[in-house]
């Protein structure tokens, strides 16, 4: 028996959500409540005026760093970029056949995907309102295609309910809305809402509930043509003889509530997940590669930053060439834009004031884990008519997503598991090979063809990524209040940028916007200095 002290209470749970899921979620909540009043700037402003060969050293060649390099060079700055990895892009990253990846702990995976197959371990979708990022895609010729965020035929699995059978998103959504509409119609008809709703509105409300919920003439949600039009049919409509559709039986409201499947219904409701979403054709790193075409010649790879100093005249950064251990090297510039993730920057000696130093140490990183699995046959399309989109399960898998591209092809790479938070830590604590095995094992519960068609996989647990030590900066409300502005202020000759310096945590748009904002402020200082 659990004592009250030992049991994880709902209060603990709520606090946990507030603390460890605060950021992304809070932004959404705030945006939803209209608390974010000024629309953020969504595109680069031209940096005007002569800068007399002023130099800027950029730390990190992820999107934030490369956006800055690109814009600063256009404005006439001398730019150098130091990057820890042997590639640019940072979390803007795609794994393809022939790639290898060594995570912390030393395990190396060799990607065996077929030509043309890929997996995005990091960001994988771009909402239509991330206009700064989309603007660079346009400017740099990165081709985009639709990303299927919502698939009504994808699965929702609640283990322990519905006889263990995964349900369709379509039926869960239709039945939840239908039952809620019926209840609300009942309350309305019985006069329970008379204080809130005028007589005229009441009639319209009832009509709208019937329309919204798929109710019958007498406001019931039950098996028949109206619910069938939403949840689909037991036997599909056909042509010729024996073509009449057969209606399907809605689930019970109790099961919908008790199984928690309703938690998945907001996948198309939250602002960042409202269609349209997009993905670059060929992999998310097409964006990073497009920037490399512009600024690749100023990036120095395999450079591990070990010290950051500044004085009145400039910035001095010490780094180690990770391929040639030996004497540390030094890079100097008039200014520095540092995009190193805070999980790492908090461990590097950096000469900034106490407020920025405190801010750098105040942000833990959320855990996230992904597994990409190649299958020799697109059984999800061929056997189950699932084309793109996301399935949800309360098994350890979390989410499972089908490729939004290459419909009707032979092979395909699924996102076999996508988790956050505590669940992602559990995946990260497994070896990468074990993660792949477990993703196949649990995927089998959703798709019978799984183990038969599986070929190979790759696993990325972000806390084991040597270049980030985590997925993204997880700001609590309190930390934001105390530290966010201090993190974003220019400190002497150093400014920081990255998704961690934005209100769009984890999103590439946050990295881009924070970078644009930081370099505009740096540029203003440079211009002010040159006029002085």
């Amino acid at each position: 028996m659990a004592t009250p002290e030992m049991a994880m209470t709902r209060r603990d749970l709520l606090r946990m959500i507030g603390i460890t899921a605060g950021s992304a979620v809070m932004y959404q909540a705030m945006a939803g409540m209209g608390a974010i009043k000024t629309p953020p700037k969504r595109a680069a402003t031209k940096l005007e005026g002569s800068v007399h060969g002023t130099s800027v050293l950029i730390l990190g060649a992820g999107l934030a760093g490369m956006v800055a390099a690109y814009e600063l060079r256009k404005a006439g700055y001398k730019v150098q970029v130091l990057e820890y990895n042997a590639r640019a892009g940072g979390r803007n990253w795609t794994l393809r056949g022939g790639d290898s990846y060594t995570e912390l702990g030393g395990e190396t995976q060799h990607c065996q995907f077929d030509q043309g197959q890929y997996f995005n371990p990091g960001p994988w979708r771009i909402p239509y309102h991330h206009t700064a990022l989309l603007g660079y895609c346009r400017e740099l010729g990165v081709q985009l295609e639709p990303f299927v965020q919502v698939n009504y035929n994808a699965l929702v699995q609640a283990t322990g309910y519905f006889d263990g059978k995964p349900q369709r998103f379509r039926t869960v959504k239709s039945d939840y809305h239908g039952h809620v509409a019926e209840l609300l119609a009942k309350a309305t008809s019985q006069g329970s809402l008379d204080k809130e709703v005028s007589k005229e509105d009441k009639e319209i409300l009832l009509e709208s509930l019937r329309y919204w919920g798929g109710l019958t003439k007498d406001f019931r949600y039950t098996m028949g043509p109206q619910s069938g039009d939403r949840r689909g049919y037991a036997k599909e409509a056909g042509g010729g003889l024996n073509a009449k559709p057969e209606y399907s039986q809605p689930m019970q409201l109790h099961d919908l509530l008790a199984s928690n499947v309703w938690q998945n219904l907001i996948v198309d409701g939250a602002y960042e997940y409202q269609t349209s979403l997009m993905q670059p054709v060929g992999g998310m790193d097409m964006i990073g590669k497009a920037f490399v075409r512009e600024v690749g010649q100023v990036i120095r790879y395999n450079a591990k930053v070990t010290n950051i100093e500044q004085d009145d005249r400039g910035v001095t950064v010490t780094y180690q060439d990770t391929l040639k251990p030996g004497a540390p090297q030094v890079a100097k510039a008039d200014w520095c834009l540092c995009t190193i993730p805070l999980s790492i920057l908090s461990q590097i000696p950096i000469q900034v004031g106490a407020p920025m130093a405190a801010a750098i140490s105040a942000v833990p990183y959320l855990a996230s884990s992904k597994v990409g699995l190649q299958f020799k046959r697109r059984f999800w399309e061929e056997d189950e008519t699932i084309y793109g989109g996301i399935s949800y399960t309360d098994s350890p898998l979390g989410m499972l997503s089908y490729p939004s591209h290459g419909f009707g092809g032979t092979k395909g790479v699924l996102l076999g598991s996508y988790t956050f938070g505590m669940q992602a830590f559990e995946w990260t604590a497994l070896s990468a090979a074990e993660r792949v095995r477990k993703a196949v094992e649990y995927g089998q519960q959703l798709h019978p063809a799984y183990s038969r068609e599986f070929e190979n996989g790759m696993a990325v647990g972000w806390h084991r990524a040597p270049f980030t030590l985590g997925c993204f900066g997880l700001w609590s409300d309190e930390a934001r209040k105390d530290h966010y502005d201090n993190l974003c202020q220019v400190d002497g000759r150093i400014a920081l940028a990255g998704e961690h310096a934005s209100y769009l945590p984890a999103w590439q748009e946050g990295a881009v916007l924070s970078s644009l904002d930081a370099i505009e402020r740096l540029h203003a200082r440079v211009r002010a200095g040159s006029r002085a």
Partner: protein
Amino acid sequence: MKKMMFILLAGVASVAHAQVQGLTPSTGPSQDPAFIDMRHPEAVTGETIFTHVCQGCHMPQGQGAQGAGTYPALAHDAKLASSAYPIVMLLNGRGAMPPIGQALTDDQVAGVVNYIRSHFDGIGADDVTAAQVKAMRPQPKEPSP
């Protein structure tokens, strides 16, 4: 409003979703030793938390890891001689270390601290109690949502 927020948060981001699944007792799949048994979250021990959460970064033998940044080794860590240090790190987090203790009971935090202090090279003892942890928990400035 707070209740509504919870509902919104719980569903929206897969982020919150994962948390809900991660901590609520569930009727989920029969126990798989690879994952924490969420049917009985209160029964999860310090050792299980280490092997299923902490070792993701600190590594199975507590050896830590080195990339662009470092995960400190717990083996031969002189700082573990003091029990207060790991308790504070678990409860408050710092830098790359998340305040993971905030998702755990006092008993579980004590269990993790005792596990890491008595394993690897056994530098410390395993005598931390839940009461000690409780006393060191940061008090929220305002009621939790």
